[in-house]
């Protein structure tokens, strides 16, 4: 990367979901390419995630989800709107079925990475978001 300032990404699992492996792997390869990662871990509520995004003034929020009720991600979007954070892209990864993925994209999620997405595709997307 040739930008002077490091890209700062918040990575978190939302709600009571305990599947942390995806979030940890993504965090580790984002750090490998020189990004700064604020890793919140598991048991994070939408409120905790949005508050951390404000406090840490991150460039991108990344949510890992392995649950089957995606309303939690919707709640993050609502809170982002309320706090004027709509310029920060919210990206998601995990086992999100197509139909739910489409609904989330419509609602304001910038991008959804399905399981087995390559690290390159995620890194490239984050860089392109921040440049914009």
């Amino acid at each position, binding site marked *: 990367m040739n930008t002077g300032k490091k890209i700062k990404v918040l990575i978190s699992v939302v709600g009571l979901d305990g599947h942390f492996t995806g979030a940890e792997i993504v965090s580790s390869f984002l750090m490998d390419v020189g990004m700064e990662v604020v890793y919140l871990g598991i048991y994070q509520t939408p409120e905790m995630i949005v508050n951390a995004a404000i406090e840490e003034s991150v460039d991108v929020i990344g949510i890992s989800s392995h649950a089957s009720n995606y309303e939690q991600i919707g709640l993050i979007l609502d809170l982002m709107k309320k706090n004027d954070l709509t310029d920060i892209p919210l990206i998601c990864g995990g086992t999100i079925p197509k139909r739910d993925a489409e609904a989330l994209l419509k609602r304001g999620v910038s991008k959804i990475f*399905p399981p087995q997405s390559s690290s390159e595709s995620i890194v490239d997307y984050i860089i392109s978001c921040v440049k914009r």
Partner: protein
Amino acid sequence: MEARMKRQTDYGYEIKPVYTPEDIADIDYAKDIGDPGLYPYVRGYYPNGYRNRVWTRRMTAGLGSSKRTNEILKQYREMGQTQGILVICDRPNAMPIDADHPIGRREAGVLGWHGASLLEFEELMDGIPLTGQSITLLGSSAMSCMRLAYVVALAEKRGIDFTEVHGSVTEYPFCSTFGQTDHMPLDLLIKLWMDSSEFIVRNKIHMRCGILSQHFQESGGNNAQALAVEIAQLKELLGLLVNERGLHFDDLALLPYELVSIGSRFFEEIAKVRALRRMYAKMAKETFKAKNEKACQLLISIHTSGRTMTYQQPLNNIARCAIQTLAGAIAGCTAIDNACLDNAHAEPSAFAARMSLNTQHIVSDETGVTDVTDPLAGSYFVEYLTNRIESEAYKILQEIENQGGMTAAVKKGYIHNMMEESARKRQKEIESGERLVVGVNELVIPPEEDDDIPIQSVEASDSEKIAKRMEQWRKTRNIPLLKEKIEQVHADAKKGRNFNLMPSIIEAVKAYGTAGEIMGVIRMANGFHYDPLEMIECPFDL
């Protein structure tokens, strides 16, 4: 592509192009392998293998309300699942918090069944027999005592002797480290685990306790690490029952069961299970001085690997599932449940569940795999791999022992780091093309051409319905009785690590105490907040 492909086991052993008698020259058949039914049980526990009893072919259920999960179970029964049921609990229940908790209500019925009270269990089991098939409830370790109490309470209501129920409803305390998260401190989990285990053993209940390597492996661990972690867990936990609860190891014979994750590394997976039987048998004899042969036989179930199921071209997963099921069958096991073709998308749809059950029946009924016990024994390659993975696992086990055993290794983060490092390595191998995954880094098709499959889902409104029902039902209970029983749990929980809480938990469950309430007062008695998320206060005056 093929030129770059790694010829290594998943734990890094470089595989040779051919294996010969020389590779297994140091094996003494009678001493190191033995016939099926003979120590050290590499070839299994039964001379007749599956001829006496084919493995239990079952599917995981659990989604939405108890009534909905009950309907799914009945549907599975119609699909031919008659040997046993397997139900997984939801996220709030894992914590455990109740459905009407401010956070619980967002996710009740998500990823499983909301087993927060005896009422939910009664609805789950409505019209389903408690005996004559195995009853398996998967969930967090913290909830083990509760699930066991549900079985005892419902058996009593139905006029059945609870010692006749068989299956498994309790789980090991380390699962909270491997993604099966609950919010209980590890030491309290270990205490509660000893309580439920001791209750099972002393009452001679035909219930197993899951002490599993599957969660560890599905969260990233490799085959050799999974073996090492499994033996380390068994050694630590069974040791506690012997040393702290004064139980004889020979009486623990029927307690543990292991769920092995079987991936697509066909020969390695088979070698892993064969080596596991030997490692356990040796530990039982050498470390615990077992005299009873049964106590040297670890019951092994198999879960075909969820993490190998791809999101891309999900129908390919049927092929993976079939290969893994065949490996599990050849390895020898007592039950198999499959990850479904839609595993990377959602909870199993009826279509996916039927495919998985049918796959198991194709393997058991059409291939001839049930005719002969341990058919790959004597293969130069498989016998070599069995020795190899065992010696790799012993090395890792030694490292865990050097940390002070499993509990210490978990607390120091050693196990977590091992798992994460291994997951990262696998991701890198796939990205570099050293490991090929069809549909992911080989034979890829555009997403718009991908297979269309039915999707099973839970809506936010379903969670809210479960929450509302609980809120209203709560008030209809016999409150004075409940209060008395909850106070007893609280008082008993203050009596120290080795005072068994099962009797008072069973009484509180019969009075329809909920998971949040019963586990909450146990937490309080141990100096923690009633609510693991510290959002609500204890409703009882204690």
